[in-house]
């Protein structure tokens, strides 16, 4: 009979999703802002 430790597994899977999704969204928003700023500088 395997030990009952499913809660730890759920915590690890949720934490991984939050970290990766959070970083990806933050990076995409940062990219949009950086490109808008670079475009503004170019047209100025």
């Amino acid at each position, binding site marked *: 009979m*395997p*030990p*009952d*430790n*499913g809660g*730890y*597994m759920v*915590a*690890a*899977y949720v*934490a*991984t*999703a939050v*970290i*990766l*999704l959070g*970083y*990806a969204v933050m*990076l*995409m928003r*940062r*990219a*949009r802002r*950086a*490109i808008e*700023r*670079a*475009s503004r*500088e*170019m047209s*100025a």
Partner: protein
Amino acid sequence: MSATAARAYVRIGTAITLAGLVALAGVYVVALKFTPVELRQGLAQKIFYLHVPAAWNALLAFSVVGICGGLFLWLNDRRLDRLAESSAEVGVALGVVMLTTGPIWAKPIWGTWWTWDARLTLTLFLFFLFVGYLALRAALHDPSERARFSAVVGVLGLLLVPFIHLSVYLFRTLHPQPIVLKPSAPSLPPEMLRTLLVSALVFLVLYIGLVTIRYGVALAEEETEGRLDAA
């Protein structure tokens, strides 16, 4: 010109990252639903399908920083510096996954969240070294100085990577021995090995996608920085 190139990098990187995130959802389903439960460790063993791929790709990312740093010191090519910077940031994000999932696995299996053994301590040290690398880059304003100084730190970080891999052989450690990246055949049942390798591939896709976006950000920020300095 750079803004157009940056936009192209961000667009391609976003497409790869989104594909990677969808594939990661697939890995969750395969790992949780279709991969057998290990009898001794129970469900906590499934953390392995996220922790190990995150660790492999974090070490790959830090190795890329070191290699690009060394090549930059030799060739003085700004593209190498941009790639190193991008890889370092994504490596730190993957390092956060590795250092979060590791203790969550360790608590039910070892009975403690953390232990100061060689493998864990060296990995934490490497992580902080690359956090320092990013802090150093943020602190230096002159682009050529920033690229040279951070390249040296990147090369020093690269020297740690083989030590981390070999630390389980060199020191007495609680951390499990390598089960895939070792001279003999992988010691894992085929279903578990398949899930692990698919997950590693998906993390690699995510790494490539995120680095591509970050490279576009570096290009766009350089463009702005250059114009502001010229003004």
